[in-house]
């Protein structure tokens, strides 16, 4: 018995020591010393050594009285949004600048979490790509400053395909003509936001629209939608799409293509440098990029991604924060640093003229003027989920396509009310 008594005493003592030793440090609120700004942004590039850190350092050199530091959020956009929402809902002043995914503008603005940027609107509008600028507005007001962008590209195996296809039908013809050893096309077909992005690229390239400019009217065309959905459904059943299509997100699609299991891929620009570095990949040295095809072969449409910087309405340093977000959107050095140091596409239109040497950036320079953002409505999350739930089963042959597009139409109309 003595033994276990001693055991218990030891346990109790160590418990007390442990409890007393909780490391002290900044609490969750984050004390901002003097004029220090906190930039809540996540992802790989926000890590120490990443390009966002370099941008922050550049600002700090030029503005030593209002330095900015990065509060690192997780990689996944959903987690970033959750962490920002928790802070903003309790009206905390811990974050001054928010790195927001382009589809969150409406939601954040509606909740009163953002400071309006109307007074710096002209400066920003002049410098930015129109699509990116649109994604930062809602209700006619500017709520965020574009920072970096993203657009979908068509990757293809240049050793298997001579000229990149300009229509979707051409693409599927080429894809299914292969010997069957290599899969056809891989995109983001799992049931998540990326699926809606891919579907919109088909829908928009067939001439469809979702809303009018200020989201007050639904312009959804069920016939065009049915055509786009039918195309995808046929592509799955004909084998134009590679087998892993309906469970693939960005990384799975990249792996398919990079391991040499697909001839075509729709993905964001980030894949380019990864394949270039991977000398063991069958695609290395044998691939190229092109604009996404459309249904009739004219032009190209791609869905916009990327991040905008916004100022928290609860910040203690609103003026300095506004200066920063404007600077980050309009300063040539900072914006070109995004491209050259981090391969992150900038939103400043003039920067693309200087980047003609970089294959990815020059292609983006061609595509971005026509790239469309998803509607910045506060209800976009709800709409997206409804679209996923209606269209995903239809594309996979489980429900009727006509019913599915009708469902999407009612969801859109419900959002407008």
């Amino acid at each position, binding site marked *: 018995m003595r033994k276990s008594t001693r055991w218990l005493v030891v346990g109790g003592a160590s418990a007390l020591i442990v409890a007393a030793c909780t490391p002290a440090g900044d609490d969750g609120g984050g004390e901002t010393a003097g004029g220090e700004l906190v930039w809540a942004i996540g992802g790989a590039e926000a890590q120490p050594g990443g390009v966002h850190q370099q941008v922050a350092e550049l600002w700090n050199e030029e503005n030593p009285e209002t330095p900015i530091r990065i509060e690192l959020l997780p990689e996944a956009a*959903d987690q970033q949004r959750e962490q920002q*929402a928790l802070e903003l*809902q309790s009206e905390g002043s811990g974050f001054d600048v928010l790195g927001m995914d382009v589809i969150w503008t409406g939601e954040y603005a509606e909740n009163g979490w953002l400071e309006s940027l109307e007074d710096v609107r002209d400066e920003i509008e002049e410098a930015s790509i129109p699509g990116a600028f649109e994604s930062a507005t809602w209700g006619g007001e500017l709520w965020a400053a574009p920072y970096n962008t993203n657009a979908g590209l068509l990757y293809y195996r240049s050793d298997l395909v001579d000229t990149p296809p300009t229509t979707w039908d051409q693409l599927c013809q080429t894809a299914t003509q292969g010997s069957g050893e290599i899969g056809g096309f891989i995109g983001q077909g799992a*049931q998540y936001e990326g699926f809606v992005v891919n579907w919109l690229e088909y829908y928009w390239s067939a001439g469809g629209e979702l809303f009018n400019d200020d989201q007050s009217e639904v312009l959804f065309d069920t016939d065009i939608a049915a055509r786009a959905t039918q195309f995808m459904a046929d592509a799955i059943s004909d084998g134009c799409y590679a087998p*892993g299509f*309906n*469970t693939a997100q960005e990384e799975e699609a990249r792996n398919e293509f990079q391991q040499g299991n697909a001839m075509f891929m729709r993905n964001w620009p980030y894949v380019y440098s990864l394949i270039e570095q991977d000398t063991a990949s069958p695609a290395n040295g044998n691939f190229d990029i092109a604009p996404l095809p459309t249904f009739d072969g004219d032009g190209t449409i791609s869905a916009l991604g990327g991040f905008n910087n916004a100022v928290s309405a609860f910040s203690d340093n609103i003026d300095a924060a506004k200066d920063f977000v404007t600077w980050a959107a309009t300063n040539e050095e900072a914006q070109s640093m995004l491209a050259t140091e981090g391969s992150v596409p900038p939103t400043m239109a003039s920067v693309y003229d200087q980047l003609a040497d970089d294959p990815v950036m020059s292609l983006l320079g061609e595509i971005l003027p026509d790239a469309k953002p998803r509607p910045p409505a506060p209800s976009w999350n709800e709409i997206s*989920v409804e679209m996923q*739930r209606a269209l995903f089963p239809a594309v996979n042959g489980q429900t009727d396509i006509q019913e599915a597009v009708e469902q999407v139409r009612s969801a859109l109309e419900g959002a407008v009310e």
Partner: protein
Amino acid sequence: MTRVRPATADETRSDVAPPRRRGSGLSERALARVFVAPSLILMALVALFPVLYAVVLSLFEYTRRERQGFAGLGNYVAALSDDRFWSALWFTIVFTVTSVAAEFVIGLGFALLMNQTFRGRGITRAAILIPWVIPTVIAAQMWFFMFNVTPGFINSVFGLGDFNWLGQPGWATFAIVFADVWKTAPFVALLLLAGLQTIPVEITESAMVDGAGRWQRLWYITLPLLRPAILVALLFRTVDALRVYDLVAVMTGGAFDTESLSVLVQQYVVRTPDPGYGSALSTLTFILILGIGLVFVRALGRDIAIGRTEGAR
């Protein structure tokens, strides 16, 4: 006995308390309350108030995050008339029944094995526990990676070509159940192993002497005596399975009819926040799980009462 006995040699042992006065100490009844109080207080403070808060929230109507007004049971009616709720409920029940049944059988097998003495039993026991100690977030990613057609690990090991496990209804459910069974059978095994320790050797030995075979021993002696441990294991595995979230969210995202109740709740609390509706869904889930849990608790309560009086004769 309430009389105070003079100190004897035995009682000069150092770990005996100073002279006890049986009559003037706390009565057993009050003592019981004192013993239970810390637990109740801790649980009430931390766990009870958020539950009440959520239930109250569920009575109001919201548009996204803005409160619109009192809705009474409106959210509940909306939830119960939504097909999506019933599909989620169906999947959750199917998942729970299959995975708990499999976990029980496998867990029992593991426990019986871990109970034996043989060379390498320490390592075996550690090996059996490994699936359970792996953090769920990693285990979910791992099983996604293994089942998914890209890179197709399971497909290549079993030569299945391009079989799309996660991309079709039915098989997607199977994959999730498989991953859950792999991960939590050790938990059941652990509880049953501890339970096996409370079965005195003499009973099994005398049964063997009487000529009972292995299966008879298992069925007629071991299992009945193991009943309390089995009920606790089943109870907690069931309520956990009814709340499955991580595996579903990472492996399929709820596609192909694999949306569980927790995934549905999560959507309305976090993804497309509607505090009223989300809380209503949570409360409905809670009521369901509590109801099922009650069945086990009643059975367990009887066992505990019986256990006290019979002991291990």
